[in-house]
Protein backbone atom coordinates (compact mmCIF):
# COMPACT_ATOMS: atom_id res chain seq x y z
CA UNK A 1 0.00 0.00 0.00
CA UNK A 2 2.76 2.37 1.00
CA UNK A 3 4.69 1.44 -2.07
CA UNK A 4 1.77 2.29 -4.32
CA UNK A 5 1.34 5.60 -2.56
CA UNK A 6 5.03 6.29 -2.95
CA UNK A 7 5.01 5.48 -6.66
CA UNK A 8 1.97 7.68 -7.18
CA UNK A 9 3.55 10.46 -5.20
CA UNK A 10 6.81 10.34 -7.11
CA UNK A 11 4.89 10.39 -10.39
CA UNK A 12 2.71 13.34 -9.63
CA UNK A 13 4.37 15.45 -6.98
CA UNK A 14 7.94 16.56 -6.98
CA UNK A 15 9.15 16.68 -3.43
CA UNK A 16 12.48 18.09 -2.47
CA UNK A 17 12.86 17.33 1.20
CA UNK A 18 16.46 18.46 1.44
CA UNK A 19 15.41 21.75 -0.14
CA UNK A 20 12.55 22.10 2.34
CA UNK A 21 14.93 21.53 5.21
CA UNK A 22 17.51 23.99 3.87
CA UNK A 23 14.72 26.56 3.62
CA UNK A 24 13.80 25.96 7.25
CA UNK A 25 17.40 26.32 8.39
CA UNK A 26 17.72 29.56 6.43
CA UNK A 27 14.69 30.86 8.28
CA UNK A 28 16.24 29.75 11.57
CA UNK A 29 19.35 31.79 10.74
CA UNK A 30 17.24 34.93 10.47
CA UNK A 31 15.94 34.05 13.93
CA UNK A 32 19.51 33.59 15.14
CA UNK A 33 20.42 37.05 13.91
CA UNK A 34 17.23 38.54 15.40
CA UNK A 35 17.99 37.17 18.86
CA UNK A 36 21.73 37.54 18.27
CA UNK A 37 21.32 41.30 17.96
CA UNK A 38 19.53 41.36 21.30
CA UNK A 39 22.16 39.19 22.95
CA UNK A 40 24.73 41.64 21.63
CA UNK A 41 22.86 44.57 23.20
CA UNK A 42 22.66 42.56 26.41
CA UNK A 43 26.42 41.89 26.34
CA UNK A 44 27.30 45.54 25.80
CA UNK A 45 25.03 46.76 28.60
CA UNK A 46 26.06 44.04 30.99
CA UNK A 47 29.63 45.09 30.33
CA UNK A 48 28.84 48.67 31.34
CA UNK A 49 26.33 48.00 34.16
CA UNK A 50 27.68 44.83 35.74
CA UNK A 51 26.67 45.54 39.34
CA UNK A 52 23.22 46.83 38.42
CA UNK A 53 22.51 43.73 36.36
CA UNK A 54 23.50 41.54 39.30
CA UNK A 55 21.27 43.54 41.63
CA UNK A 56 18.26 43.57 39.31
CA UNK A 57 18.48 39.84 38.56
CA UNK A 58 17.88 39.14 42.26
CA UNK A 59 14.26 40.13 41.56
CA UNK A 60 13.89 37.05 39.33
CA UNK A 61 12.84 33.70 40.75
CA UNK A 62 15.57 31.19 39.88
CA UNK A 63 13.23 28.32 40.74
CA UNK A 64 10.62 29.34 38.15
CA UNK A 65 13.40 29.81 35.60
CA UNK A 66 14.79 26.38 36.39
CA UNK A 67 11.37 24.71 36.13
CA UNK A 68 10.80 26.39 32.77
CA UNK A 69 14.22 25.22 31.59
CA UNK A 70 13.39 21.64 32.51
CA UNK A 71 9.96 21.94 30.86
CA UNK A 72 11.47 23.14 27.58
CA UNK A 73 14.24 20.52 27.59
CA UNK A 74 11.66 17.80 28.14
CA UNK A 75 9.42 19.23 25.43
CA UNK A 76 12.36 19.02 23.03
CA UNK A 77 12.79 15.37 24.00
CA UNK A 78 9.13 14.52 23.31
CA UNK A 79 9.29 16.50 20.05
CA UNK A 80 12.27 14.48 18.81
CA UNK A 81 10.67 11.21 19.94
CA UNK A 82 7.44 12.10 18.14
CA UNK A 83 9.36 12.18 14.84
CA UNK A 84 11.06 8.86 15.58
CA UNK A 85 7.69 7.29 16.44
CA UNK A 86 6.11 8.51 13.20
CA UNK A 87 9.03 7.33 11.09
CA UNK A 88 8.80 3.92 12.72
CA UNK A 89 5.14 3.84 11.73
CA UNK A 90 3.71 4.24 15.22
CA UNK A 91 1.21 7.01 14.56
CA UNK A 92 -0.51 6.74 17.94
CA UNK A 93 2.73 7.08 19.92
CA UNK A 94 3.79 9.96 17.70
CA UNK A 95 0.53 11.76 18.51
CA UNK A 96 1.02 11.12 22.23
CA UNK A 97 4.55 12.57 22.14
CA UNK A 98 3.43 15.55 20.07
CA UNK A 99 0.52 16.26 22.43
CA UNK A 100 2.93 16.13 25.38
CA UNK A 101 5.14 18.69 23.64
CA UNK A 102 2.15 21.00 23.24
CA UNK A 103 1.17 20.51 26.89
CA UNK A 104 4.73 21.34 27.99
CA UNK A 105 4.59 24.50 25.87
CA UNK A 106 1.36 25.45 27.62
CA UNK A 107 2.90 24.76 31.05
CA UNK A 108 5.83 26.98 30.14
CA UNK A 109 3.45 29.82 29.30
CA UNK A 110 1.41 29.32 32.49
CA UNK A 111 4.64 29.60 34.51
CA UNK A 112 5.60 32.68 32.54
CA UNK A 113 2.19 34.19 33.29
CA UNK A 114 2.61 33.71 37.03
CA UNK A 115 6.18 34.97 36.91
CA UNK A 116 5.22 38.13 35.06
CA UNK A 117 2.12 38.81 37.18
CA UNK A 118 4.28 38.64 40.30
CA UNK A 119 6.59 41.25 38.75
CA UNK A 120 3.63 43.40 37.71
CA UNK A 121 2.24 43.22 41.25
CA UNK A 122 5.55 44.51 42.54
CA UNK A 123 5.15 47.43 40.16
CA UNK A 124 7.93 46.18 37.90
CA UNK A 125 6.48 46.42 34.43
CA UNK A 126 7.74 48.36 31.41
CA UNK A 127 7.16 52.06 31.88
CA UNK A 128 5.92 51.82 35.49
CA UNK A 129 6.90 54.54 37.98
CA UNK A 130 8.57 52.00 40.28
CA UNK A 131 10.70 50.69 37.44
CA UNK A 132 11.62 54.11 36.12
CA UNK A 133 12.72 55.26 39.56
CA UNK A 134 15.42 52.56 39.58
CA UNK A 135 19.01 53.29 38.50
CA UNK A 136 19.61 53.31 34.74
CA UNK A 137 21.43 49.95 34.74
CA UNK A 138 18.46 48.21 36.34
CA UNK A 139 15.97 49.84 33.97
CA UNK A 140 18.01 48.53 31.05
CA UNK A 141 18.18 45.08 32.62
CA UNK A 142 14.41 44.89 32.98
CA UNK A 143 13.94 46.35 29.51
CA UNK A 144 16.09 43.59 28.02
CA UNK A 145 14.43 41.01 30.25
CA UNK A 146 10.91 41.90 29.10
CA UNK A 147 11.80 42.24 25.43
CA UNK A 148 13.92 39.09 25.17
CA UNK A 149 11.84 36.72 27.28
CA UNK A 150 8.71 38.33 25.79
CA UNK A 151 9.84 37.70 22.23
CA UNK A 152 10.83 34.20 23.27
CA UNK A 153 7.35 33.64 24.73
CA UNK A 154 5.84 34.81 21.41
CA UNK A 155 7.94 32.12 19.74
CA UNK A 156 6.62 29.53 22.18
CA UNK A 157 3.05 30.55 21.28
CA UNK A 158 3.78 30.38 17.54
CA UNK A 159 5.51 27.02 18.01
CA UNK A 160 2.48 25.72 19.89
CA UNK A 161 0.17 26.74 17.05
CA UNK A 162 2.44 25.09 14.46
CA UNK A 163 2.55 21.90 16.53
CA UNK A 164 -1.25 21.92 16.84
CA UNK A 165 -1.44 22.00 13.04
CA UNK A 166 0.97 19.07 12.89
CA UNK A 167 -1.26 17.19 15.33
CA UNK A 168 -4.19 17.52 12.92
CA UNK A 169 -2.02 16.76 9.88
CA UNK A 170 -0.78 13.53 11.43
CA UNK A 171 -4.31 12.60 12.49
CA UNK A 172 -5.57 13.07 8.93
CA UNK A 173 -2.49 11.29 7.49
CA UNK A 174 -1.41 14.37 5.59
CA UNK A 175 1.84 13.95 7.49
CA UNK A 176 2.77 10.29 7.67
CA UNK A 177 5.55 7.71 7.81
CA UNK A 178 6.66 8.49 4.25
CA UNK A 179 6.09 12.22 4.27
CA UNK A 180 7.18 13.79 7.52
CA UNK A 181 9.32 16.77 6.48
CA UNK A 182 6.71 19.21 7.83
CA UNK A 183 6.93 17.57 11.24
CA UNK A 184 10.74 17.62 11.07
CA UNK A 185 10.79 21.32 10.20
CA UNK A 186 8.32 22.12 12.98
CA UNK A 187 10.64 20.20 15.28
CA UNK A 188 13.60 22.30 14.13
CA UNK A 189 11.65 25.45 15.02
CA UNK A 190 10.75 24.03 18.41
CA UNK A 191 14.35 23.10 19.20
CA UNK A 192 15.47 26.61 18.25
CA UNK A 193 13.03 27.99 20.82
CA UNK A 194 14.63 25.62 23.33
CA UNK A 195 18.17 26.73 22.40
CA UNK A 196 17.32 30.40 22.87
CA UNK A 197 15.97 29.66 26.34
CA UNK A 198 19.14 27.69 27.15
CA UNK A 199 21.00 31.01 26.80
CA UNK A 200 18.33 33.27 28.32
CA UNK A 201 18.17 31.27 31.55
CA UNK A 202 21.76 31.71 32.80
CA UNK A 203 22.05 35.25 31.38
CA UNK A 204 19.01 36.62 33.21
CA UNK A 205 18.41 34.35 36.19
CA UNK A 206 21.89 33.29 37.25
CA UNK A 207 23.90 36.49 37.66
CA UNK A 208 26.05 37.47 40.60
Amino acid at each position, binding site marked *: MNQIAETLASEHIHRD*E*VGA*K*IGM*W*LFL*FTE*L*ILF*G*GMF*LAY*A*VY*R*FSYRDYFALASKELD*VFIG*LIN*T*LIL*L*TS*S*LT*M*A*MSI*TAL*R*RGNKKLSLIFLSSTIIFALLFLVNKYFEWSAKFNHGLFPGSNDLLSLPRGEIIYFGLYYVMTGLHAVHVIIGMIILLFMLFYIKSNKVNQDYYIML*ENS*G*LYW*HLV*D*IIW*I*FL*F*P*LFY*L*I*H
Partner: protein
Amino acid sequence: MEHKNNHIVGYGTYIFVWLTLVTLTALTVTVASFDLGGFSIVVALIIASVKALLVMLIFMHLKFDDKIFRIFVAVAFLTLMIFIVLTFSDYSFIR
Protein backbone atom coordinates in the same frame (compact mmCIF):
# COMPACT_ATOMS: atom_id res chain seq x y z
CA MET B 1 17.76 11.55 -6.21
CA GLU B 2 18.25 9.60 -3.03
CA HIS B 3 19.28 12.39 -0.72
CA LYS B 4 16.79 11.46 1.93
CA ASN B 5 18.40 10.72 5.22
CA ASN B 6 17.27 7.34 6.41
CA HIS B 7 18.85 7.32 9.81
CA ILE B 8 16.24 7.07 12.55
CA VAL B 9 17.53 8.08 15.94
CA GLY B 10 16.38 5.71 18.69
CA TYR B 11 14.52 6.74 21.84
CA GLY B 12 17.47 5.64 23.98
CA THR B 13 19.83 8.16 22.36
CA TYR B 14 17.31 10.96 22.87
CA ILE B 15 16.74 10.06 26.51
CA PHE B 16 20.48 9.92 27.11
CA VAL B 17 20.92 13.40 25.56
CA TRP B 18 18.01 14.70 27.65
CA LEU B 19 19.60 13.34 30.83
CA THR B 20 22.87 15.05 29.89
CA LEU B 21 21.03 18.32 29.29
CA VAL B 22 19.29 18.10 32.68
CA THR B 23 22.61 17.35 34.37
CA LEU B 24 24.25 20.34 32.66
CA THR B 25 21.33 22.51 33.81
CA ALA B 26 21.87 21.37 37.40
CA LEU B 27 25.58 22.08 36.96
CA THR B 28 25.03 25.61 35.69
CA VAL B 29 22.68 26.41 38.60
CA THR B 30 25.17 24.96 41.11
CA VAL B 31 28.12 26.84 39.64
CA ALA B 32 26.11 30.07 39.71
CA SER B 33 25.76 29.80 43.50
CA PHE B 34 29.53 30.23 43.85
CA ASP B 35 31.01 33.64 43.31
CA LEU B 36 33.63 33.22 40.60
CA GLY B 37 33.74 36.91 39.78
CA GLY B 38 34.08 37.68 36.08
CA PHE B 39 34.71 34.04 35.38
CA SER B 40 31.15 32.91 36.19
CA ILE B 41 29.74 34.36 32.94
CA VAL B 42 32.38 32.42 30.99
CA VAL B 43 31.44 29.15 32.72
CA ALA B 44 27.71 29.85 32.20
CA LEU B 45 28.26 30.52 28.49
CA ILE B 46 30.42 27.43 28.00
CA ILE B 47 27.80 25.20 29.62
CA ALA B 48 25.01 26.85 27.59
CA SER B 49 27.00 26.37 24.38
CA VAL B 50 27.57 22.69 25.10
CA LYS B 51 23.83 22.29 25.72
CA ALA B 52 22.97 24.14 22.50
CA LEU B 53 25.45 22.01 20.57
CA LEU B 54 23.90 18.81 21.92
CA VAL B 55 20.41 19.98 20.96
CA MET B 56 21.58 20.88 17.45
CA LEU B 57 23.64 17.74 16.82
CA ILE B 58 21.17 15.17 18.14
CA PHE B 59 17.68 16.67 18.50
CA MET B 60 18.03 18.71 15.32
CA HIS B 61 19.77 15.82 13.51
CA LEU B 62 22.78 17.81 12.37
CA LYS B 63 25.02 14.86 13.19
CA PHE B 64 23.05 12.59 10.87
CA ASP B 65 22.03 14.97 8.08
CA ASP B 66 23.97 15.97 4.97
CA LYS B 67 27.23 17.77 5.61
CA ILE B 68 25.81 20.87 3.92
CA PHE B 69 23.64 21.57 6.99
CA ARG B 70 26.63 21.57 9.33
CA ILE B 71 28.46 23.98 7.00
CA PHE B 72 25.36 26.21 6.93
CA VAL B 73 25.13 26.38 10.70
CA ALA B 74 28.86 27.01 11.04
CA VAL B 75 28.62 29.95 8.62
CA ALA B 76 25.62 31.39 10.50
CA PHE B 77 27.39 31.23 13.85
CA LEU B 78 30.58 32.61 12.33
CA THR B 79 28.56 35.60 11.08
CA LEU B 80 27.16 36.17 14.56
CA MET B 81 30.65 35.85 16.05
CA ILE B 82 31.91 38.52 13.62
CA PHE B 83 29.15 40.87 14.86
CA ILE B 84 30.10 40.22 18.46
CA VAL B 85 33.86 40.45 18.04
CA LEU B 86 33.69 43.60 15.92
CA THR B 87 31.28 45.26 18.35
CA PHE B 88 33.49 44.54 21.33
CA SER B 89 36.72 45.39 19.57
CA ASP B 90 35.15 48.80 19.04
CA TYR B 91 33.22 49.13 22.28
CA SER B 92 36.07 48.12 24.59
CA PHE B 93 38.02 51.21 23.54
CA ILE B 94 35.21 53.77 23.86
CA ARG B 95 35.38 55.38 27.24
